[in-house]
């Protein structure tokens, strides 16, 4: 069974491109446009990997990450932050919240996919 990846971002064009790439690599892809929507999906379909933006309306990425990692049923889910926030303290905060990886925007899609592959194989 293919691994499930949840992409959370409020930028439609980013969602579109990542969905295309991940599907092509054989992942089952879920999409959420903000944190609240993401938490709903996570509840129903526990993904293996989450690609998470930080800056979103309503519930931000940090919060989503924290909730996932603090919940025993979802704490194993790998979380990769994809964020335009590039300051050291923002990155540190991401790892503090339990992220497995923090990638700053803009990023190389090849690198991203290779990292997602690595997590899947673990």
């Amino acid at each position, binding site marked *: 069974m293919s691994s499930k990846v949840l992409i959370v971002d409020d930028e439609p064009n980013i969602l579109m*491109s*990542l969905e295309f790439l991940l599907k092509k690599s054989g992942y089952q892809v879920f999409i959420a446009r903000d944190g609240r929507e993401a938490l709903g999906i996570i509840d129903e379909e526990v993904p293996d990997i989450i690609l998470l933006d930080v800056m*979103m309306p309503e519930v931000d990425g940090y919060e989503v990450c924290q909730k996932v990692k603090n919940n025993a049923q979802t704490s194993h889910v790998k979380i990769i932050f994809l964020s335009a926030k590039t*300051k050291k303290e923002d990155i540190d905060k991401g790892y503090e919240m339990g992220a497995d990886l923090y990638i700053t925007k*803009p*990023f190389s899609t090849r690198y991203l996919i290779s990292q997602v592959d690595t997590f899947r194989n673990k």
Partner: protein
Amino acid sequence: MNYWLIISISIVYLGLLSLVAYFADKRAKTGKAIQGNPYVYALSLAVYCTAWTYYGSVGKAASDGLSFLATYIGPVLGMPLWLFLIIRIVKISNALRINTLADFIATRFGKSTTLSILVTIMCILGVVPYVSIQLKAIDSSIKVLSPDADQLLLFDSALLVVILLIAFILVFTFRTVDSTKKHHGLVSAIALESVVKLVAFLLVGGFITYGMFDGFGDIFNRISSENLTKYSTLEDSSFPVLLFLSFSAVFFLPRQFHVTIAENTSPENIKTAIWLFPSYLLAINLFVIPVAIGGEYLLSGNVDPDMYLIELPLLAGNQVLAMITYIGGFSAATGMIIVSTIAISMMASNNLVIPLIIKGYNPSKINERKALLIRRISVVVVLLGSYLYFEFVSNEFPIVAIGLISFAAVAQFTPVVLASLFWKEVTRQGAIFSLLAGFAIWFYTLVVPGMVKVGLLPLELVSSGPFGVEWLNPTSLFGIQLSDPIVHGTFWSLFFNIGFLILGTLFYDQSGKERNFADFYTEYYKYHDQSNRLVWKGTMIQRDLKRVMENILGKGIATLEINSFKKATGISLDENDEVNPQFVTHAEKLLTGAIGASSARMLIASISKEEDIELSDVVALLREKKEISKLNELLSSKSSELKKKADELATANSRLQNLDVEKDDFISTVTHEMRTPLTSIRAMTEIIHDNPDLTDEERKRFLATVVDETDRMTRLINQVLDLEKLESGQLDLNLEKLDLCELAREVIDSFEGQLKSRDLNIELKCGATYFINGDYDRLTQVLNNLISNAIKYSSDNSTIEVLIEGEQEVMISVKDHGKGIESENIDRIFDKFFQARDQTRKKPKGTGLGLSITKRIVNMHEGEISVRSVVDSGSTFIFTLPRFKEELEIINE
């Protein structure tokens, strides 16, 4: 009454007094001094009330009525002055170890020997007759009690009293040479004497009023009709002069100066004295008028009115009360004699005898023992002198006359002392001339006529003036007749006294030494305890100074003082070293306490090579002091200025920091906003690059996205640049006459496509045709921003209303029906990237710069922009613009 009984009682009384003095001294040694008690201090001041008060007031009342009260009203009226006058003198005297009036005046004028001698002589001449009348009072009262006593004796009773008093004084004072040591025993004894004379007077006065008569009412009914006005009105034209004389006397009589200043243990005590002393004066005068009236009624013409107080109880056959009266009078007289003698002998020995020895012989001949001996001899001389004066002169005068002449003598000190405290510029020459002139006129107008009266000088002197020069007549100088010899003498003596004080000050300059003390006296409060800052200049070996101190103060005290000075200042006082000037000043102060200011001065001078203190030294000291205070002022004003500047700097800094933070925020937000389209662009291009197998449709979609995102970046960059221009003021408006409704229509039309896709409708309402003076492109941008915002936030299928209206100015409002703006954000909505501040939440659409730019453009057109919003109902943005000028003029016409 038996003469020996009287003498025995007198001796017993003095014996009791001695016991009190002895125990007070003993207590003081164990640290429980009675003298520190403010009541003891206040009572000791009542030494002012002498036998003159005791017997003489009655006599004066009997002859002149109420005018006797002047002697008591003067001091009472002067009481408020004590608070700043006496406290001042006490503090200065304590600081400089001054304990006589002579020292106080001489020190002020550079420790002038001339002045100390002059004051001493004036005091002696003024006071010896006064002491002698006390002897006369004792003698007279004994004679009344025991009329044929004199025949029993080889010498008269006054001499016996003198011998007893000499013994008392020698035992209880001057046991150490340092006269700044307070005489606890003496002061306690004087306070007791004050109680005794008051109680005696009240007892006897009460007996006469209530025992011999039926109280005040009864006595006042016996006033003979010719005497009625005397007791009911005060027509004595000399009254004001008498007030002034007694006012001066209570300050400057040597005995008053002694008890008030020299024996003062704490300036605080003065506050008690201020009410207690006047109360005492009131009480002791309570029965004066009744006794005078009673005496006149019962004894008129037969006896000396001065003796009514004894004669009346005798008349009533009450021997015991007569004896009590005698004891009261005896205590009044002895108290005055004791204190006056001490004060006078201290001045005489310190200012006349010791300086003579220092000058004439060898300074090293003076030591503690000799100084004491000299002072003791002075006591004997003063008392014997008073006795001789009594024996040969004062019998000829009534008590009151001599008392007033004494008062007039000490009144001569008033101008100089007041000037020394309040007139910084007054000079030594002024003081000398003032005292000489005042004293000479006093002597000529008040003493010479008396000498004529007793036959010492020819009668022509007062009848037709000296050598027949009428205007020099001592009883009417310059041919001016005044009501009373005392008024005449006081007036002219003070006239010349003050005149010469002013002239002497105007025509001479102060020396440096004087200036030194002038400053200290007039501004003593600035010095506090810094009397050591007084200047001394010269060369001396410490060993010599130490030897002198040992001689005068005793080895123990000298060593103690040297050691404590060393400890306090950390200055080493090696025997072979040059002296420390500060220590010299201190030592001189100690010696002043022992042998008086001028003797101490001479002694120091004799062992040192002294340089005159140049005025410039003092001026330098003063200038230093002034400059320091000026510097302090400057410093404190500078520091407050500095504080202000620092505050301003801090504000500016925090503003800058805020600006910095704002700028950082701005940059990070802008870069952040650029990363998002870049991410999409990169992702899309990588997909196209890595996937040659994409369908045409897919490729087209991805490329279109790349174009969109590129546009978004361009918009962002343009807006950042716009804002930068607007903020730095580099943007110039291209002003032209614009039809606002037309402009709005154009902008709305450009949104047609977007409106259709979201089922939105825009309604434009123009109240009239509005022309404004504006920049077409920028105003288009404003409307564009507002309308695109309205479209973004509108709920689908709703209407956006654009309204243009107004009279004096145009109001443009854009109203949407959307989700509205939260009230906490409404104030910040025009800030750059305001939503970005809360950096993890994001504005859903747009760059975050639009409203910021809009506001700036509106402001540049002299308009205002504001927003009203209701959450979930919609927002209305309203901005104003001034109407085109000519159009406005048409409207206003």
